[in-house]
């Protein structure tokens, strides 16, 4: 495990009508590993994701990305720094086809601009070609290339998960925040997604994942963070977590998991 601080939060607090959703005093994520966040329903995992990707504002506390304070940045700024997230309830662009979904994700702001779109610079055409190739590579990786020209709404739930993951991959971010990437996905597809995540780590990406599939989490994660009632109750390697009494009480239930 390297010790490069990538993402760090200090005293992050968020409550909804008196109920403390997130209360994390200090949590640091290091580069190039897969960290999973687990915990019972309502533990604040997704809220935590929303806070560090700035889709929700914290009541208090600070967030640093590579030492840079991003506590009040806009969500799209966070993404531009290299952190791309997915959503628990998949958010694909339903009435656009799969290829367009991926090409939009990969496209730069400059390429998307009104001026270059109305003039249609030759460089834009070239870039779009590149983008298309890249999109097809990702579709091949995710095994959805036969769906390239289908509307995203026509995909199955699992394929939508794949497409959302694909959109994140096309952007080639440094950090991926995956919110339940395996939820509602069949076992075979789950394995495939885990393999893709594994490859991302090998390529040097950092992945944070919220997931309920404990068996998978324990098998693939380098580090597991356990949340309950907004707080972090355990943080360590899968083996340490498996043996932790507090975690067994709050979440795992029995040691026979």
């Amino acid at each position, binding site marked *: 495990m390297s010790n490069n601080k990538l993402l760090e939060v200090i005293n992050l607090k968020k409550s909804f009508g008196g109920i403390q959703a997130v209360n994390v005093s200090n949590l640091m994520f290091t580069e190039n590993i897969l960290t999973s966040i687990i915990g019972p329903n309502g533990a604040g995992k997704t809220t935590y994701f929303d806070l560090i990707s700035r889709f929700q504002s914290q009541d208090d506390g600070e967030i640093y990305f590579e030492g840079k304070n991003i506590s009040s940045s806009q969500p799209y700024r966070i993404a531009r720094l290299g952190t*791309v997230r997915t959503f628990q309830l998949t958010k694909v*662009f339903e009435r*656009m086809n799969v290829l367009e979904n991926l090409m939009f994700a990969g496209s730069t702001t400059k390429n*998307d601009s009104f001026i270059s779109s109305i003039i*249609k610079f030759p460089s834009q055409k070239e870039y779009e070609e590149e983008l298309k190739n890249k999109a097809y590579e990702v579709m091949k990786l995710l095994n959805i290339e036969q769906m390239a020209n289908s509307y995203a709404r026509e995909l199955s739930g699992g394929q939508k998960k794949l497409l959302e993951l694909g959109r994140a991959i096309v952007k080639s971010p440094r950090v991926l925040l995956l919110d339940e990437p395996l939820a509602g996905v069949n076992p075979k597809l789950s394995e495939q997604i885990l393999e893709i995540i594994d490859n991302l780590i090998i390529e040097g990406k950092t992945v944070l994942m919220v997931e309920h599939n404990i068996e998978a989490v324990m098998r693939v994660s380098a580090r597991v963070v356990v949340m309950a009632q907004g707080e972090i109750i355990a943080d360590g390697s899968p083996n340490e977590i498996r043996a932790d009494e507090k975690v067994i009480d709050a979440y795992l239930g029995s040691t026979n998991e």
Partner: protein
Amino acid sequence: MRLSGRGIVTGLVTIFSLASVYILNTGNATRLILSLLTFAGIYGLSAIGLNVHFGWTGLLNFGHAAFMGMGAYVTLLLVPHAAGREGEITTSGLHIFPAAVIGVIAASLLGLLLGLPALRLRGDYLAIVTIAAAEIFRLLVRDLEGLTGGVYGIISYSDSLQKYRPKLLDSLLKDIDASLNQVWVGVLAWFSIVIVLLILRRLNNSPWGRALRAVREDEDAVRALGKNAVWLKLQSFMLGAGIGGLSGIFLAFNYGSLQVTTFVPLLTFYIWAIMILGGVGSLSGPVYGAVVFWVIISETDKIAGLIFENANGQQLAGVRFALVGLLIMLLMIYRPSGLLGKKEELLLNVK
């Protein structure tokens, strides 16, 4: 362009609509059809602008009349005109072309001004703000009498456009019963439609158009992918507002005198009806929608008169609106995506 089933049906409906005008109006059909096509061109152009907002970007703009009004007022006040209670004459002014360009830019800037605070809102909240803003615009124009002519309106501005009417048009229409002024405005409106559609087609097939569609589909996902959704919405708002402004200028020149009551919310709802009839999200749909809409609006009283021979004017007006409603309902039941809209991209189920 590839001829699709949808395209054929749309063509047939449009031709049938115009043919019915001929059948229902022996005697003055030509004049009526030319007038109708002028209105259809102007309203169609406006609906194309609204379609950029709603069809492309998913923005619920219910204040389109304000953008049309902004374009019209700024342009008319820049060319020679007479305004206000005393009909105070302004003889100096710009040529119509630069004035119209400034009018379009002003409408666009109104879009920016309105969009800056409003586009942070979502869906129906934006709808409420835009309808309120349009009313504020209209009431301001009404009450700032010194500047805008207020309730007395603006007159004597037509010449600034009509003096550029080509002689060719006059000789072509020599033997035809038609208003030359109106036909000239109609020709320009339809010419603008062609230009605007060519530009929009270019944009629709571009990364920018793709980005707007993505905003329409899911703003959160757009943000999560590092794109500034508010800025994209703002650009869309300005473009559509500019197109609306241009159509407002034509509307003013079609009337010959400008009344502030032209820009009541009803105008916005007419434009909405045209966009929905034509097919939300389709490029040229609003144009056909506009023709069919104007035929329905202008001919239903005659159809009502045929059905109820002994009815008086007031009764007919009531039947007419019932017929308009019935026709629009039938179209919506059998073609919920509009004449040219794609069913797979049916856009009326707003989140």
